[in-house]
C-alpha cells in the first residue's frame, strides 16, 4: 500500500508536467504554422528558431 503514496503522485505529476508543457507550447505560438515548421527543418538558417 505504501508504494501508492510514491507511485500515484509520480504518475499524476508526470501527466501534469506534460499538460503544462503543452499549454506552454500553445501559448508560445508553436502550432501557428505547422506546415512551415515541417519545411523549415530542411533549411540551414542563420537566425535563432522561435518567434
Amino acid at each position, binding site marked *: *500500500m505504501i508504494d501508492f503514496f510514491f507511485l500515484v503522485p509520480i504518475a*499524476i505529476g508526470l*501527466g501534469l508536467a506534460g*499538460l503544462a508543457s503543452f*499549454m506552454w507550447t500553445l501559448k508560445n505560438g508553436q502550432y501557428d*504554422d505547422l*506546415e*512551415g515548421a515541417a519545411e523549415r527543418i530542411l*533549411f540551414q538558417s542563420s537566425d535563432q528558431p522561435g*518567434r
Partner: protein
Amino acid sequence: MSCCAPGAEFYLLQAKAREDEILLASPPVHDGLRQTDLSVPDIHCGGCLQQIEAALHKLDGVTSARANLSTRRVSILWCGDAPPPFIPVLESIGYRAHLHDIASSRKDPALSQLLLALAVAAFASSNIMLLSVSVWSGAEPATRDLFHWISALIALPTLAYSGRVFFISAWRSLRRGRTNMDVPISVGVLLTFALSLYETIHHGPYAYFDAAVSLLFFLLIGRTLDHVMRERARQAVDGLARLSPRGALVLQPDGSRTYLPVDEIEPGMTVLLAAGERVPVDARVIKGTSELDHSLVSGESAPRPASEGAELQAGVLNLTAPLTIVATAAAKQSFLAEMTRMMEAAETGRSGYRRIADRAAQLYAPLVHSLALLTFAAWMIVGGDAHFAMTAAIAVLIITCPCALGLAVPMVHVVAARRLFENGIMIKDGSALERLGNVDTVIFDKTGTLTSGHAQLAVKGSAEADALGIAATMATHSRHPYSQALAECGLGRPQMSFDTISEYPGSGIEARRDNDVYRLGRPGWAIANRFASEAERDAAVALSVNGRSVAHFGLDDQLRAGAAEAVRQLKKSGAFVEVLSGDSDARVQKIARQLDLTWTAGARPADKIRRIEAFKQAGNKVLMVGDGLNDAPALRAADVSMAPASASDIGRTAADLVFLREDLKAIPQSITIARATAALVRQNFVLAVAYNVVAIPLAVSGEVSPLLAAIAMSLSSVTVVVNALRLGSPDQGTARSAAVQEKSLLLLEASK
C-alpha cells in the same frame, strides 16, 4: 489645366498614399516597433519562406520578418517613421503581396480555450482510465476506494474547466426554453459524476468517473475540429486582397493633403481620387473627367463616363483619370452601409433554420430522459430499492449519452470541409453544408460571377493586319484595365518599336514613329476623321494612325471558365437555374441565351431580394451566387450563398461559401459534396441509434458495469468517425463528380 501635369503629380501622390495606407494598417507594438501583416498568396514551400525572410531582413528598419506557410502570411516588425518598401521588394522577387488587417489575423481566443479544455480533458481521462484499469482488473476494496477518490479529485476540476463549454451552451438554450445537444450531455455528465461520488463515499464497487471524463474528451474533439474548420475558412477568406478602400487622400482647406481613414471622412471634405482607386464614400465630382467601373456596385459591366457634377456611389472604381470629389455622405450613411442594413434585414428570414444535430437533440433529449425516469419508476415498483433503481436510471443516461451523436455531424463536416478546401472552396460553417445539400434552385449574378470580372476586349468589325500588334505594344505602357486586357490579347505577336510613347490620362496613349502619330484610346480623342462610322464612335477603344481609324475594340463579356459545364451539371442534377443581374437587358440576355437560361435584368438590390423571396415562398431552396456590393443583401436572403474570391469584401463576408479558383464548376462540385455529406450524416445517426437499441436494454436491466460503458462508448465513437472518413475516399459519394471531372478532361483534350 494642362492634360499631362496633373497625372504625373497624382501618380507621385498615389505612391505616397500607399505608404500612408501601410502606416494606417500597422499598429505600434512595443519599443517604437510597428507590426505589419502582409498576405502573400504565392508562398508554397519552405524555399519561399527562406527567400522572403532573407529579402525582408536586408531592408533598413526591419527588425524581424516571419513568414507563415499555413496561412500564407508574412508578419514584419519594423521601426522608423516611414514603412520600408516591403511590397515592392516582395514583388521584385516574384511574390504578390497585399496588406492584411492585423485585427482579423489576431489569434482566435475561442480556439485556444477549446484546445486548453481538450488538453485538460485528455490528461484527466488518460489518468483516470489508468486508475480504472487497475480497479477493473480486481483491486482490493481499500485500494479501489483510494483510486476512486483520486479519480474524483482529478475529475472534479476537469468537469469545472473542460465541461464549461457544454454547460454554458446548455444553460443558454434552456433559459430560452429550448433544448440542444448540450442539454443531455450536461445532464448525463453531471448525474454520472454525482452518482460516482455517492458510490465512492459509500465504498461502492462501481464508479463512472472515467465515463464522465472521456465523454467530455471525445465531444471536445468534435467541437474543436468543427471550430478549426470554420477558422481555416475564415482565415483563407481574410487573406484575399481587400477591395474596399482603407482611406483616402483628403485635401484640407489650407491646401495640405492628409491620408484619412474612411471612417473619418465627413460630408463636405474634398478627396483626391487617383486612377485605379475606389470611391471611399458617396461623393460628387467637382473637377476632372474620367470613366468609372460600376461592376462591383451595380453589376453593369460597361464603364460609365463621369464629369463635373456626377454623383458617385462608394465602391465605384475610378479607371482613367484623377478626379477631385467632394464627399456627400459619411461612411456610415454611404451606399455600403445601406447594403449592410439590407443584409441585416434579410438575415432575419434565415434564422429559422435549425441544424440537424439540434433537431435530433430535440427528439432525443426528452426520449432519453423519460426512458431514464421510466427505468427508475419501474425498478422502484418492482424491487423498491432506491439505490439500485437510481443506478440503473443513470446507467441509461451514461449509455445513451450522445457521444456518437456529438461526433456524428462534426466529423463528417470536417472531412467534407477538407474535400472542399482541396477544391479551392472555403465553407464558413457546418450548417451551410446542410443547407447546400437541399438546394434545388440556383440563381447567378452576371457580372463578375458568370462572366469573369476583368475587362475583356475584342476586335469589332474589320481591323488592319498588324493593328493588334501595334495596339498591344502601346497598351503595355499603361496600367489602365483596358490596356492590360489589350496587352494580354497581343502576347506573342510581333512587337513594334516607337520613338516616344506618352499616356494622356482620361484619353489614351500616344506613340510616335518617324512622322506617324499613333493614338490608342477614347474614339473621340483618337479618331480625327469626322466621317468615322457609328460603330467606331461607340467602341470602347480605338486605334488610329494620324487620326485615321485602323481598328476598334469593344467590351466583351467573357464567360468564366467552366460556366457552361457548371450550368449543364446543375440542370442535370435537377436544379432550376436563373440569371439575376443589375446590368442592362441586352447584355444579360446575350449571356443567358448562351447558357440557355431564363433571366431578369436591371434588378436593384431590393428587386433581387424580392425575387429570391418569391422562390422561397414557393417552397424552393435557393442558392445565390454573386459577387458585387449590390448582391450582398441577396446573398444573405437566399438559403445558402456562394461568392467568387474576386467578389467585393462585403459580398465575401455575406456568402457562406467562397470559391478561390476561377472555374465555376466549383458550384456543382460543392453541391455534390454537400449531398454526399448529408447522406453520411444520416447514416451516422442510424449507426448511433442502432447502437443505442442494443445497449439500452442492458442499461435498463441494470447490467452495465463501468467497463462495459467504456467499451460501448469508445466503439460507437470509433464507428462514427470511421464512417465519416469514408467521405474522403474517392469511391464514396464523390465517384460521380470524379467521373464527371474525368469526362470533362477527356472532352477538353479532344477539343484540342
